[in-house]
């Protein structure tokens, strides 16, 4: 099967998200789509997968123009998509999810035949998922594997993957790449959307680079990383240097804290962070690091253990007190947990910077918003609803909402889904706080990020802290072992 996108345009109101994009996807290749945030990658993929219609342009399959307007119809043309966050039914069993995804199930079906089909596919790809366990218990990587075999069983010949290597372990990544190569060798088309240069280079046969909604270039193996970087960014951003740690006083101290939640809860974690220190939390998705951040921010109450800020006990004081003491939290899912989607940019400033006014002084609010929009180069105006901002701009807005002198900033995957340029901007801004004595604790599924900016690394496994070490004293190997739970 050969698929061709011809002169695709997509408008969102006045925004021209895709400008005259033409791409040929040929059978048996792994095709990478590379580009910074807001380059139009996701939009293009959603059009190809039938989630949104294009404003104009054509999709040709084997030279014949086709039209479809839902993912189900797209699957009839054998086009399927896998999301960054898999869209499955967490309450159901693995096998049930698998069966639900197959179209035209005969009314009377036998569990047995599906189970056999499931096992055969798993064996083919080298996946090991228990069909009887509930999807809720799977790791992100396993859910991704489930999605892949579901799409294959549903007959997809073109499989789109959006940021597939985010949040999965190294071993899972290797398995995934092997499976994708196998699928391509069988004659399928694999389209991988990513901004991780390394992954794209080791996996893909052809790479199309998008920039500002247009095709900037198409490159085939062997790749030159500098050429790709040059295509992605007009100038190659320099990595952010780690700021030097001035040994400060202990700031936040957690003493054998346990809390329920997530996949495995939090078990007896003791932890201290000093003023001006940057600590990176690593571990497989759902190992407790994100719950840890919620406990440290006062959002989740610990069942056991104590939390101190300086000499003051904060346990069970509630989020308001934590916030008033200068503990800030920025969650990873910005629209779901960090922002109010229906409120405008300036209304967010009212909520954060005008705490003690009863009536809203709109003139001053407007001034503050405009200043921050300029200072943080947020693309949007003060009356834009935040749900219309792009991911990078939402993150900039969240940073601009931080108070002047926070004591501790807790961030969950601060640069997930952001391009290199936004990421380095965000980290250099955050580091400016550390020079003033603010401590930063962040979780990341990207070890490069932790090794790049943090002073100390803390690894979580199964709800416990299994490694806590300054970065100079630990090797990447040791960290990998800790993440995988090898002791």
């Amino acid at each position: 099967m050969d698929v061709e996108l011809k002169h695709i345009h997509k408008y969102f109101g006045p925004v021209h998200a895709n400008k005259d994009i033409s791409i040929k996807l040929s059978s048996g290749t792994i095709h990478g789509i590379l580009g910074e945030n807001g380059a139009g990658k996701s939009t293009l993929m959603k059009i190809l997968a039938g989630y949104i219609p294009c404003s104009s342009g054509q999709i040709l399959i084997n030279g014949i123009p086709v039209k479809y307007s839902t993912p189900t119809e797209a699957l009839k043309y054998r086009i399927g998509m896998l999301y960054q966050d898999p869209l499955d039914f967490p309450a159901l069993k693995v096998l049930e999810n698998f069966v639900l995804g197959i179209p035209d199930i005969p009314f009377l079906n036998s569990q047995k035949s599906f189970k056999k089909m499931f096992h055969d596919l798993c064996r083919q790809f080298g996946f090991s998922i228990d069909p009887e366990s509930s999807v809720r218990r799977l790791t992100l990587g396993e859910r991704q594997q489930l999605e892949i075999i579901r799409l294959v069983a549903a007959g997809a010949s073109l499989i789109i993957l959006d940021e597939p290597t985010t949040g999965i372990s190294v071993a899972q990544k290797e398995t995934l790449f092997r499976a994708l190569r196998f699928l391509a060798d069988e004659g399928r088309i694999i389209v991988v959307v990513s901004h991780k240069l390394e992954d794209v280079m080791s996996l893909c046969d052809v790479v199309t680079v998008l920039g500002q909604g247009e095709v900037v270039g198409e490159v085939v193996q062997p790749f030159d990383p500098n050429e790709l970087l040059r295509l992605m960014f007009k100038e190659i951003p320099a990595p952010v240097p780690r700021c030097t740690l001035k040994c400060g006083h202990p700031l936040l101290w957690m003493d054998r804290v346990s809390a329920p939640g997530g996949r495995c809860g939090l078990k007896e974690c003791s932890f201290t962070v000093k003023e001006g220190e940057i600590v990176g939390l690593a571990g497989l998705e759902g190992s407790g690091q994100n719950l840890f951040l919620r406990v440290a921010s006062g959002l989740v109450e610990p069942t056991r253990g104590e939390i101190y800020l300086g000499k003051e006990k904060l346990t069970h004081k509630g989020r308001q007190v934590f916030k008033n003491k200068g503990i800030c939290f920025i969650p990873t899912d910005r629209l779901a947990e960090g922002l109010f989607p229906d409120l405008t940019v300036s209304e967010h400033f009212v909520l954060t910077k005008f705490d003690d006014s009863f009536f809203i002084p709109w003139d001053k609010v407007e001034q503050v918003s405009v200043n921050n929009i300029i200072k943080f180069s947020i693309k949007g105006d003060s009356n834009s609803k935040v749900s219309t901002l792009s991911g990078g701009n939402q993150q900039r807005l969240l940073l601009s909402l931080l108070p002047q002198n926070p004591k501790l900033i807790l961030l969950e995957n601060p640069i997930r889904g952001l391009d290199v340029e936004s990421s380095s901007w965000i980290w250099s801004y955050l580091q400016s706080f550390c020079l003033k004595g603010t401590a930063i604790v962040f979780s990341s599924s990207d070890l490069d990020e932790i090794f790049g900016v943090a002073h100390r690394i803390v690894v979580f496994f199964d709800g416990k802290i299994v490694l806590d070490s300054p970065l100079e004293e630990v090797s990447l190997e040791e960290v990998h072992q800790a993440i995988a739970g090898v002791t």
Partner: protein
Amino acid sequence: MKITDWVIVILAVFSVTTVVLFLVGAPPIDAYMLIFKGAFGSWRHFAQVLNVWIPLVICSCGLLFTFNMGLWNIGVEGQIMLGAVGSTFVIKACSSVFSPSLILVVAGICAILGGALWAVAAGFLKIRGNVHEIFSGLGLNFVAQALILWLIFGPWKRPGIASMSGTEPFPKSLWFPVPAGWRVSPFMIGLAVVLLLATAKVLQATRWGLVLKALGSNVKAAGVYGISVNRNLFFAMLCAGAFAGLVGFFQTTVIYHRLIPAISSNYGYLSLLVVMLAQYNWKPVPFIALLFAILQVGSIQLPLMLRIDSSLSGVIQGLLVLTAIGVMYARRRS
């Protein structure tokens, strides 16, 4: 919604209603004329319309607080009833002690407290028991209705014989004063307008109003901003309950001058429809409330003159909400 959308909604509603009227064999033009005459035929009729408009507007104001926060305060019906019980209690207990005007003021305060208590009860169940406000509100509505029936047939029954027609009427001196020949209290009209404007001011111009809107937009983000969901939920329910309690006061002292089983006249449920149709904005509220009041009062004549049930007004009101939601949905999709 734009004006054109409203025109579409109204045309759709009246064409469906016309079909319904044809099906039951009633002449549609006559029916609409009757509704119109029933509402505007004389000052007496129009005063009745205003007497429905006042409680609808006051109750809707309260609901604006809860709806903006994303709360479904179905319990508003019971909150009106508790307001009525509160004011009747004061009038029964103190009628021989204080001066009438003082008693009316105290009755008003007690009505507000009664409504607020019932709303806070639902809020408390949500905060402490994690019970959805729709279920607790619905349950509390039944409890309030049972309480009123018990009072009418028990402690507050008429001397001699208890009856569904309610308690003994209050002494005339304790009726809320209405100028001779007016049939509607200008004070209450003024109060409804003032409350509507105050609600609008609080929701639009204060930080608290914005906090409610924020919580309505995304409760999960509240923690990040240090906004207490429970405290704001409590105060939003308190406001809604207080406004509903005031409606209970209005129904007992201005309209019925006693406690009757159907004291709320379903104004709580109607107000829910008014606010939903207004899409939680304050501006359309007085106009939609007026339309509802006209339908409510105008259709009283229908059973007598055309032998069709007066629930036709309910059919029209329901259709209005459904088609409006349909049009909004279609707009959002396109």
